[in-house]
């Protein structure tokens, strides 16, 4: 109780101090000469953001890059050894390979399914309901979704009843139940399904909006010219929504490069399912290899940056078009 009161008092003092400083700055800004006032205003508005970016983003990034050149506990310089490990150690290579599989499959399938769905339900009677159905998984956290799918993939011996949906289907089909998450390399594909399940809704919503934004004159003109539905889609709709398509694809790629929760929750990276972000965590926090963990973090960063840059440019271009 006393502890609580002491903390509340400390908090009160801190808030009062902060307000006093702000008041003082505002007062100076109000009274001082114009040049000083402008500079002060800039500092006042941009300063906190810059400080936060510096402390929260720039410093840790630099520190991580430096750490990646040091050994396990960050004491002696080892040059590029950690990077060499990433690209030569068989286990680490499996991780890199899996990440590539994720980066190729998830965006393609999530966007593909989202696009197909958006086109099929466009202007149908059940559009709203159908959209919310596919969009619902977006509302579930990655960990929640992973737990759901772990149940879907759950295995029980043939002699007892199955509790996993997928294995029950397999048994009904007359086949023996499978341990889906144990068999490399297929287990990675079963994990990819989880991410696609979550992300397809996002792709669908964005692409559906883009399709609706296609000018009606264009589609009408194409129809009058006798274009088949496929030609209409291929030659009119698709070029019109291209910028949105690229934004969706790249956004999903960025998400996939950072995927961690799904692997962590379903297999923990066992059985050759680890990906870069999961391995970064494992190396840093369970194996105590901070150098390797940092090297993996830098690698993810390097892979994400060009995609982010491209994404931002596309986003800007989309806005200009609009």
């Amino acid at each position, binding site marked *: 109780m006393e502890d609580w009161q002491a903390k509340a008092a400390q908090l009160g003092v801190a808030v009062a101090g902060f307000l006093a400083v702000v008041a003082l700055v505002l007062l100076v800004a109000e009274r001082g000469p114009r040049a000083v006032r402008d500079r002060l205003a800039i500092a006042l508005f941009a300063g906190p953001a810059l400080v936060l970016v510096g402390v929260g983003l720039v410093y840790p990034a630099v520190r991580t890059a430096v750490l990646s050149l040091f050994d396990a506990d960050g004491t002696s310089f080892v040059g590029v050894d950690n990077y060499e490990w990433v690209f030569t150690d068989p*286990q680490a290579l499996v991780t890199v390979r899996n990440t590539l599989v994720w980066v190729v499959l998830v965006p393609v399938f999530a966007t593909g399914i989202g696009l197909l769905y958006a086109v099929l339900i466009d202007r149908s009677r059940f559009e709203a309901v159908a959209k919310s159905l596919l969009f619902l998984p977006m509302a579930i956290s990655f960990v929640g979704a992973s737990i759901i799918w772990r149940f879907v993939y759950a*295995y*029980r011996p043939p002699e007892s009843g199955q509790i996993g949906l997928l294995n029950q289907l397999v048994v009904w089909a007359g086949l023996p139940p499978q*341990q889906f998450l144990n068999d490399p390399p297929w287990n990675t594909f079963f994990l990819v399904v989880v991410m696609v399940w979550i992300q397809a809704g996002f792709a669908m919503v964005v692409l559906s909006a883009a399709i609706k934004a296609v000018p009606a004159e264009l589609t009408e003109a194409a129809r009058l010219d006798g274009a088949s539905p496929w030609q209409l889609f291929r030659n009119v709709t698709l070029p019109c929504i291209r910028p949105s398509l690229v934004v969706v694809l790249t956004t999903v790629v960025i998400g996939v490069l950072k995927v961690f929760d799904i692997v962590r929750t379903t297999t*923990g990276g*066992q*059985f050759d399912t680890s990906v870069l972000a999961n391995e970064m965590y494992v190396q840093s926090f369970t*194996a105590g290899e901070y150098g390797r963990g940092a090297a993996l973090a830098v690698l993810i960063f390097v892979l994400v940056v060009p995609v982010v840059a491209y994404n931002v440019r596309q986003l800007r271009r989309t806005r200009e078009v609009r």
Partner: protein
Amino acid sequence: MAQHRPRRALVARTAVLASVLALVLAACGGDGSSATADGGASTPADCAAFADYGTFDGATVTVYASIRDAEGEVLQRAWAAYAECTDTEIDYEGTGAFEAQLRVKVKGGNAPDIALLPQPGLIRELAAQGALQPVSAQTESNVDANWDATWKGYGSVDGTLYAVPHGAYVKSYVWYSPSRFADAGYEVPTTLEEMKALSDRIVADGDGKPWCAGIESGEATGWPATDWVEDFVLRMAGPEVYDQWVDHEIAFDDPRIRAAADAVAGYLKNEDYVNGGFGDVRTITGTAFQEAGYPILDGACWMHRQASFYANQWEDGTTVGPDGDVFAFYLPAASADGEQPVLGSGEFVGAFSERPEVQAFQRYTSTMDYVRSRAVLSPGSWVTAAKGLDPAVFSSPIDRSSYEILQNPEAVFRFDGSDQMPAAVGTGSFWRGMSDWLNGKDTGPVLDQIEASWG
């Protein structure tokens, strides 16, 4: 990560234990009352026993450990009388992320006064950093008197004692159902050969598989299998080779280690033997270690190798005892007489400060008064390696059995090897290697891979 094991078990402890405890106390009233009489020595009324420590005017000693919840409260009761009589404020904090947090605290210059350190490796690391303080001469003479040299050794670095032994846990246990063994006419095996023969006999009898196992444990998946391998290295290659293996004086994939791993494969990778109640061998990788022994109760499996703390995992209403639903036998040695190797783990009381109230508290934990007061409170989860306690002070039969094993003059105790190896191996490649191994990879490549990771 041994400290996680008891703790996880501890967290799960609920009314099960209370009921087990009640039954046990009812069953052995004599022992129970003598235990209470011992406990009486530490009631707040009698401060004479603490006169020697002086009083500290309400000075605070912070204690940091991985023991939480109900267990944490029991732990604090063990020193309540001391705190009152010496006027020391003992501020206890238990956390689920102990090692990571402790390292952060120490690096940030915010170390606790006292920590319960679960790994000799961590003691070495903290002593090398100069963070841990060597114990006082008085404390050291207590440790010399109350523990044998092995246990003192785990708390020492280069001959200097840094931490006082606290809890001790026996891992070389096989859980089984005494009643079902009796019905089927099975005898508890006393040698490794007998255990193999019994397993074959159970297979021949065809009523459920002899073994069940599970190594899924979230981030720590794999550890139960490392315990299997360590137990067999200790039995087949002997304690000296075990020490060399743990210290990496011999390769991880040395032929003798390979032989022990092959012997484990004879159980865990044997489709006839496992995985009772769960399916084939590979289901071991996905079965939670907490649930892995349950098929013993419904008859799908006969034996489950797991540490003493598994006593707390059994469902409500299960009696744990030599005549109960489940009990554990000592995982036999190669031969019934001679050395009886014991794999185990424990925790140690280390001090980060030289302040007199901290040193006095650490000294108190090295006395038999404290050990007894803690043991009496133990509801089936805490055993010590300190010498000369009456086993009757332990109220649960499994604790009593653990204490007897630890005190057996033929017993050769070895600390959990994966806790002593570098983290990258002990909590990294060894764990993952075991998962891959039970998922179908061959023994040779798995051991090679772990050896390769040990830089």
